[in-house]
């Protein structure tokens, strides 16, 4: 997983509350076999009209949004179905950081598992960040838990475990495999009472 220590990038704002995972990636796109390729269909129902033509007014369709890596949004982001495809879609579009008022638990966890940094900031701060123009950048200093935009500096909270994972870019599997001796010791004493195994 790619480490995030300090990230500077362009932001887009989608200031609605309760954006659910079905809006992030509708279910007709779930029958994929890869984690990639979801980006062009992210926010599908808002991005395309019924003839599948991009709606020019929608923020993600504007040429000025190209290359943005920070999504500024509302409360309760990623609610609804637990599909991990929602996190993949946002990552695949190019976002690395989300700044919301809050997240559904499952979506938050899915972000931590996919190298997508979920930050929580209050409405007032997000209202300011939402004003950033395409020419401006926002900086996230994860080590110091700060979001910096012009002369505004916003402090955010993050669980130390997730913070450490993002800073080091290690994934859950690496973390678990550091316990391999314990796992093997545990396994050695498991009883199966002579059951045949599938493999």
């Amino acid at each position: 997983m790619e480490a995030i220590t300090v990230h500077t990038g362009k932001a887009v704002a989608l200031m609605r509350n309760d954006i659910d995972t079905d809006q992030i990636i509708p279910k007709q796109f779930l029958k994929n076999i890869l984690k990639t390729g979801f980006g062009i269909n992210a926010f599908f129902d808002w991005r395309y009209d019924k003839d599948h033509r991009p709606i020019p007014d929608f923020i993600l369709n504007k040429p000025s949004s190209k290359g943005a890596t920070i999504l500024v949004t509302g409360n309760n982001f990623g609610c609804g179905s637990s599909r991990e495809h929602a996190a993949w879609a946002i990552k695949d579009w190019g976002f690395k950081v989300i700044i919301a008022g809050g997240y559904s638990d499952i979506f938050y966890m899915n972000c931590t598992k996919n190298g997508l940094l979920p930050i929580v900031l209050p409405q007032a701060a997000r209202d300011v960040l939402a004003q950033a123009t395409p020419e401006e950048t926002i900086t996230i200093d994860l080590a110091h838990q700060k979001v910096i935009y012009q002369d505004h500096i916003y402090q955010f909270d993050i669980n130390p475990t997730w913070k450490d994972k993002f800073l080091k870019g290690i994934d859950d599997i690496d973390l678990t495999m550091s316990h391999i001796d314990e796992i093997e010791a545990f396994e050695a004493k498991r009883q199966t009472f002579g059951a045949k195994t599938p493999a």
Partner: protein
Amino acid sequence: MAQTMFDKIWNNHVITGEPGEPQLLYVDLQLLHEVTSPQAFEGLRENNRRVRRPDRTFATMDHDVPTEDIFNVKDVIARKQMETLKANCEEFGVHLAPIGDENQGIVHAIGPQLGLTQPGKVIVCGDSHTSTHGSFGAIAFGIGTSEVEHVLATQTIWQAKPKNMGIRVHGKFQPGVYAKDLIMALIGQNGVDFGTGYAIEFFGETIENLSMEERMTICNMVIEGGAKSGIIRPDQTTFDYVRGREYAPQDMDAAIAHWQDYYTDDESAFDTIIDFDASTLAPYVSWGTNPGMAIAIDETFPEPKDINDEKAYAYEKLTPGDKPEDIDLGFAFIGSCTNGRISDLAIAAEIMKGQHIHEGMTTLVVPASRAVWNEAKQRGYDKIFTDAGCEFREPGCSTCLGMNPDRVPAGVHCASTSNRNFEGRQGAGSMTHLASPAMVATAAINGHFVDIRKTPVHA
């Protein structure tokens, strides 16, 4: 301090981590299917990892499978998912029961049927109805795709222990009332989130008297009440069910002696307890767009209490004050991991024998697995169903979800033995009404639901 059965199995699987924090649990069995596994294998490949314990992993195909002509997968993406699963299983050495295989079927039917599902195990699968396996006295829960990858790579999973709820059930079912009605009533009366944060243990004389397949139906649907896991103490019924199955322990005596250690010390071990009287329970039918929107057959649809209810009425085109009998059915589905096992088909066949489904109804009977399909054929159920005007299909998830060719058309009300009645679940615009196999079979004959406690089955 008194412990629940869930606590004991949990503690027996902790590799590291402190109580109250996420702990690393050993996973005894992971089940895989074609829809939630491809990205997990992709992740392994990207990072040069292997499946640590292929011998504790079993894969089959169910969600995408066409049930009319099982080898003719017309949907390009579905075919791709199945081919990908096959290639992944070959590459990583995982045992696969593909379409056509004797052991193919809905993943939650396959675990129990092969004896892979056993008391005392921790069982996971990338599917929320994994809770089904808890009916054997196991800890079983659904996981996300990243977790599937994590379990493939490590045979472990990080989890925070849920709280324990006990549901004590007493009283005998009236004729025409089944395990499905019990779990639907619990959700209908307590809401779709009453179990959130809990593992639910079902106990009491009613539960002890249920068959293994009925117990599976109950644990299958706990997820619809918000709980991640359901669990039932293993007893003679459980042991008899497991004995002799392909992957059952050879040394059953030793296994049973061990499994008997799993019981809840006393009721003080539960964080909360619900009492349920099964003797007055009536058959249940869902009217709305989540499983909590359900009532007894002799009740009327409630007044909407919030915007969700209003939306549900608008979607289902139903009116408060009307009765389940008033729903004009066009479709019936008997199948799924909730009610697609041989005992479910037996109940439906008994009702359909010598009868004919109502004019204009489409009725699909879909065995949960190839083994159920074989057994049903052997018992002559296929003929009973087709003579009655039903379609007897190949095993798979079928019309439980609109992911394979089996769909309920838009604007059509469907009586369904499955577990979810969400908007569009059985196909865009479809209107689902959950009920037991007996209720659905009888409804198929009549074109509408009837109170099967009052109306003799063979009218």
